[in-house]
Structures are given as C-alpha cells and as structure tokens.
C-alpha cells in the first residue's frame, strides 16, 4: 500500500506560464519519494470558508531534490486555485498525497507510445514522458496559447493541436494524430471528457491498449466518500455496482474499463 500523508509544504517557486496557467514547485520530500506519473495531490487553501482540497495532478516529480511541480489553471475569481496563484516563494501550502494509482510505466516499455494531453490535462503527461522508456510521440492539444512545449520537446517527438490553428494542426488532438498518421502500441491520455471519449473509441477500433486519466469532483481523495465515481464496465470491487472511484481505483483506468 502506498504511503499517503498530509503535510505542510513550502513553495520553492511560482511562475505564471500563460494568463490563468500557473506553475508551482513545492518542497515535499516524502511524497516525491513515493509519487509516480499520473498521480495527484490534494491542495488545501488557507481560507476556512473553502474546506475541500483541490485535486491537482503532478506535472513533475524530482525525487532527488524532494520536489513536486504542479501546473494548474485558475478556475475563476475568488476560487481556491486563484488563492494558490497568489502565493509566492517561501509561503506554505498544505498538501496530501500521493493520491491515485498513476500511469503504468512497465506496460509501455520499449513500445511505440502515444502520450496525449488536452488543456489542463497536458501537465501530467510531462513526468510520464520523462520516465517512460520507449518511442514517445507526444500529442498536446490547446485552445490557443501553448505551455510546457519546450519541456516536451526534450522528452519525445512533439505534435501540437490548437483550436485556433496558431500552432501545429488546427483542430483537436485526434486531428493531429490523423494528420501526422501516427500509429502506436499503447496510448496514455489525460484531458476533457469529449477528448477521452474520442481517444477511447479510436483505441478500441484500432485495438490499442489505452490508459485514460479521469476527472470528477472529489471530497476526501482517498476512496471513502464515494463522490468521484465513474461508470465502470465491470462490477467494482468496493460497492459491487458499476461505479469505480476516480480518486482511489483511478484516476488512471484502462479505456475498456470505463464508460466515458
């Protein structure tokens, strides 16, 4: 069993990558030691009117230095993520983790892999790209402006899709895959539901093993409250219905395991 913990973490740096998109490095030695790509942490605001943690995926894990990087979107005025974005180096933030199961690395070893990220589903693909041992085709989709592209270029072959056509293929990640005639033995994906739905369909039609990282509103983050369930094909192990827990059974699922 993984070793989850809640601790007070010191912010090492905070940077605005794009309007509304922030990158934060956190000191979290014990969590960094345990964490794997695709896992997430719960981040807590200091505002007592906002009780619930914000689940945020890990973008980079520096085990050696004991650091975690999160790249997150500010979801609006007065939100918890806006409060995080105003924190500076030296401030502290309570976090809990590592949470979720993460992407399976062994499965992709020495294979042709497609790593697909969309929107705020892009960041978790970076640590995966760094750790995966195989041929890495990185397809990242953005609405308009792009972030993290330099880091991705250093860890595989990068293909971009933008809705406004400002870079790469004009359209979505599936358009980029078709335009570049990309083929793969395994797919890893994180992004909005419509994107995951299209990728699931593509993977199943082409009989490609496909892992998707799902998202749902969470409360506890550890599998107790049953808020963040998604519909599963098989009977789930916890409640013996068709509801897998995104925070505990996932957030990464085989595409064939879940209905999207």
């Amino acid at each position, binding site marked *: 069993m993984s070793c989850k913990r809640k601790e007070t973490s010191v912010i090492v740096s905070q940077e605005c990558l794009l309007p509304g998109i922030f990158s934060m490095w956190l000191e979290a030695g014990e969590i960094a030691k345990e964490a794997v790509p695709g896992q997430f942490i719960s981040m807590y605001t200091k505002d007592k009117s906002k*009780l*619930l943690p914000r689940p945020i995926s890990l973008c980079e894990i520096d085990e050696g230095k004991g650091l975690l990087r999160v790249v997150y979107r500010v979801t609006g005025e007065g939100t918890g993520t806006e409060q995080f974005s105003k924190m500076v180096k030296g401030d502290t933030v309570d976090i809990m983790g590592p949470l979720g199961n993460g992407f399976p690395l062994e499965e992709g070893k020495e294979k042709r892999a497609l790593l697909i990220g969309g929107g705020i589903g892009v960041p978790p693909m970076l640590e995966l790209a760094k750790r995966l041992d195989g041929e890495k085709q990185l397809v990242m989709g953005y609405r308009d402006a792009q972030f993290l592209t330099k880091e991705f270029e250093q860890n595989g072959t990068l293909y971009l899709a933008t809705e406004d056509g400002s870079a790469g293929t004009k359209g979505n990640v599936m358009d980029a895959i078709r335009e570049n005639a990309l083929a793969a033995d395994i797919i890893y994906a994180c992004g909005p539901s419509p994107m995951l739905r299209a990728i699931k369909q593509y993977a199943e039609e082409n009989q490609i093993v496909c892992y998707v990282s799902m998202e749902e509103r969470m409360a*506890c983050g*550890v599998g107790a409250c049953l808020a*963040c369930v998604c519909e599963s094909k098989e009977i789930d192990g*916890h*409640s*013996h*219905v068709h509801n897998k827990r995104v925070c505990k059974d996932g957030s990464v699922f085989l595409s064939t395991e879940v209905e999207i």
Partner: protein
Amino acid sequence: MDMRVNIAGVELKNPVMTASGTFGSGQEYSEFVDLNRLGAVVTKGVANVPWAGNPTPRITETYGGMMNAIGLQNPGIDVFCKRDIPYLKQFDTKIIVNVCGHAPQEYLEVVERLADEPVDMLEINISCPNVTAGFLAFGQDARNVEELTAQIKKIARQPVIMKLTPNVTDITEIARAAEAGGADALSLINTLTGMQIDVERQTFVLANKTGGLSGPAIKPVAVRMVYQVANAVKVPVIGMGGIATAADALEFILAGATAVSVGTANFYNPYATMEVAEGIEDYMRRHKVERLAELVGIVNTHM
C-alpha cells in the same frame, strides 16, 4: 482521567466516533488514523442489497461547508459482513453499523442479518435526504419513526441508535417518538437539505438537484438541536454536525451529548478524529475534570 462513555450498556474508551458516510468502513483512513484510538467507528450506511447511488456530480463546496448527494452507494449487507466487519474486528474500537433502506422491510432484513455478527450497535438512518422513492417522509413523521423503531427493536440483538434528520419543524417530537418506540440512543443531526444553482450554466450544481449540507456552517444548528433533544429524552444523545476540533466536540458535550461524531472534517483533515480525542483530553486536564461524563449537559447547571 476517565474518558470512557457508556451508551446503552456499551462502553466506549472515549466519546469520539466517525460520522456515517465520511469514513467508509475505516480502511481508507487507516493510513492516517490509528483506529484503536477511536471510541467507535460508525460505518457507511449499508442496505440489504448493493445500491449504485446517484449520478455525478455528487458533491459541491459551499461557504464553510459542502453538500453531498451520494445516494447511499453501498455494497449491500453480504459483502459488508464478509469484508468490512472482519476488517474492523482487528482493532480495539467499537463497531456501529449504519443501516439504510427504502422501506421498513429492507431495514429489518439488514438488522436481522446483523443479529449474529460481532458488531456493537446499530445506527438506523431514517434521515438521509438523498434517498427518494417516496420515503423521505419516514424520518420526518413521528408516527412512522415510532413504528419503525419498535419493529427494529423487536428483532435487533444490538442496541439501536436512531439517527434523526434536522429537516423537521420540531426535532424533539421525532426524538420522543423514537424513544417511545424503544430506541436505546439517538444521534443527530444528519445533513440539512440544500440546493446550489450554477448561474453560468443556469442549472443545478448537483445531479440530484438537492443535497445534504454539512461542515462547520451547520454547527450552531446542530448544537441547538442536540441541546433541545438532550433535554427532551432520557436516552443518550450522540451529537454531530460540523465538528472539526475538540472545542467543537465539547460544545456538543456541554449541550448534552454523551458522545460525538466527526464527519465532514475527515475530508479536509484526515487526522481530525484523533486530534479531537486528544484535544478533549487536554481540556479535561486543563479544567481538572476527572470523568468526561461530568461535562455532559453541564450548560444546564451553569445558567
């Protein structure tokens, strides 16, 4: 210093329990909490068969609280007996099984099935606001409450706690009805029914439209109701509703609660139960209280 409390003949090592639905059957939180340090674990509601629960979104944050509409997703009593009870038996804590149903027969089936199981008490959830099927009236109607309590008492082998809803005009009327039906203890409050609208999308935030409001925002309502009920019945009262700290728990105890449950706080502080227990101990030391029982309902004598 004696932190033990006695509820219907069951002795708890301390007054701190978990509120049903916020702690699973203990397993998920055992990575954070030493379950041996809790007075009791109150499990998530279990029905006669598995329940799938409501569609998502099932939760939303509110100012100083949250709303949930999980819909009592649970694996049913068979899996629960096979998996969850043996798990909890490894620890030196009392086991209180929360029982839910859509109709009296379903409750009775679960209670009967638990008769020979090594659990310490039953808590009957007649108050979940997220279960419809025309059953909402159950915990809100005094005659129904008395009748169901009496039926359950006839077959239950363990002491029975009736868990009351705050969504009524006069909670003491319901409390008296449960007592008249033979309840060994009462627990309150369950969540307050609420609603949140997403103004941009112009629709309900929760798929279920309504949800149960919990967390610190509801604590004053809960303390008031515990005070009223404790002064209206003779059976012990278990207080809950927004408890996050020892001071919160002590408010309920001083108002008349024999024991307390920590609920929503588990979600944002997984160590909350242990911190509350430790904090109560500190308080007793500071106030030179020998027995916790001396504090129960003490506000009545300090007026």
